[in-house]
């Protein structure tokens, strides 16, 4: 189950829960595409609770990030733990994807307003 919280008209927070894998990667793709379709150019993936990221989960992000960037925004991976970051490092994606800490995102997008 992907939960969502809207921060104004440009930014939305999507939270995959504890795992983003085969079982919900498709759901994540649909949630991101729906948000993009509604005009949200900034999509924050709250990964604070995420413990499992599979290839399919990574694929759901890679398949949608360019669209947000074309809209003038981005998909931001927020609060990812060390294991998740390590996976992204192995895939050589840390420079390609925008990975930020919870504090950075709070400051930039005022996440506290909705938490």
């Amino acid at each position, binding site marked *: 189950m992907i939960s969502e919280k809207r921060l104004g008209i440009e930014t939305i927070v999507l939270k995959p829960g504890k795992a983003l894998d085969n*079982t919900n990667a498709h759901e994540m793709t649909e949630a991101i595409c729906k948000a993009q379709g509604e005009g949200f150019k900034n999509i924050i993936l709250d990964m604070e609770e995420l413990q499992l990221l599979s290839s399919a989960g990574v*694929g759901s992000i890679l*398949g949608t990030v360019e669209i947000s960037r074309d809209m003038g925004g981005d998909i931001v991976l927020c609060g990812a733990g060390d294991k998740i970051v390590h996976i992204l490092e192995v895939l050589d994606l840390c420079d390609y994807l925008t990975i930020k800490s919870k504090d950075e995102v709070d400051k930039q997008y005022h996440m506290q307003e909705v938490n």
Partner: protein
Amino acid sequence: MNDVPEGHGQATAVTEAPKEPLERRLLALDALSKLARQFSAKPDFEHLMSVLLMTLCGQFSVGNAVAILKRPHSGSCGRTFFATGRFRNSSGLAGLDISSESCSALMGGQSSCKLKDLDLSDRHSGIIPVLREQGVGLVCPLIHDDDLLGIIGIGDRVTGKEFDREEVELIVAIIDTITPFLANTYLFWEIGRLNTWYLDILNSVKQGVFVFDSSNRLKKINTAGLDIYQTFTPGISDAGKICGKPIEQVFPPHAFGGLVPDVMTSKIAGGSAGAKSFVARGKNANRVYNLRLSESREGDENGTDLIMTLDDITAQREAEERLFNLQQLADRGVMASAISHELRNFLGLLLGGLELTQVAITRGEGDKADEHIDKLKSTVESLEKFASGLMDYNKFEVDKQTSSLNGVIGDVISFISGQQRFKDITITADLDTDLPEVMIDADKIAQLLLNLLHNGADAILEAGRSDGEIMVGTFSDESEVVLIISDNGTGVSPDIKDSLFKKRLTTKKHGHGYGLVTCASIIEGHNATVTVDSEPGEGSVFTFRFPV
């Protein structure tokens, strides 16, 4: 990792850093194995394909992947398209021809190929430029049992790095591993779609379709069938609640009478049957249905399925009834015209008789005048009989007595010979002197002769012949007395020859076709037959055969 949700394995394709190509291959295959296990329980092909493409994207750090699949049994034109990223909205990829010919040319015998390495100048100008243009960097065929199912295309890596040889081999290994599973799941998916398609077709027909299994329980019903069921058993609107009911409950006797026993009898007798109509009694109104029975080739070990098709023909029956009433009114009009026609014949006879009488009186031939007056009396008697017959039209009967056909013919020719109508026509009688007497109604045979002779005269007049001739002849054999009437008038065209002696047919420019109505009744009343030989422009020969 203790909080990982139940059901999620920890060994995913990328949860641990692959240090060697071989290790990475094993991890990738392990990830796909999990994918296969997940979807084997519920073969949702669309979901599987979507997750597979995302997995490939994640494994190889690409944003766009596409699968273009041929649709089974639909020829080269049917395609199914799944994609991630930018490829999702690529109509250029969705429309690609992935027939075996184009793909075998594309692959050139390779299990996969990097498109940038292909030289377009010497081969494969078909789909490669499109794939390149859309951003596909690597193509792999999906081959199962030597059949090309389709292709998987992978976009460029987001990191900008090229695929190395080991990675290409890994992609091929992944796709080869997953292809049999994909093929099977695809088949399930296609069967599901076909089932939906067939149901849509079934529901689109206006006839109610009821399928019963070998134990006569309802197995399938279409929308129109459900409407029929609800007409007589209100309250249930869900087909699922009706399926499983025995046939007696689907067609209860209070509404459908003996339908079910009839159906069971037909089923035992062999199943399929032509349409049979029956009335179903509803609370507010009755409905009329046409029933067709057929057997399905499907069934179970106890027998085949029975298909009942009910076509509501209530409106059609009502229309037919209205038409029948209109036809009755029209028949009355036909009858009135026929009566008028006969009256004119009688009046013609009377007029001719009067003319002959007048001539005889003028010449002082009293005997002949008396003779003509006797015939006039006879004609008036016939007219009286005709009028009496009209009082009881529905009981058209002939009053047959042993009579001489030659005598009737002689009388009629004698009557008409003085008429203006026959003034320029030669009438020849070739009568068999040994002709036996037959059981006939002399007055009605006279009517028949008059009609035919008048028609012959009109046909000669219409042909404009100066040598007009009508011949009346008789002869007999052991079982029949034969009457022949021929003329050399306009004749009858072949296309209407068989329609003569049927109501409302005429060959005359100003005729109405009602005279032969009476002739048909007279022929039928004598159990006689008639044949017509005619050539347009040459004349006609009517042959009547009376049983002795």
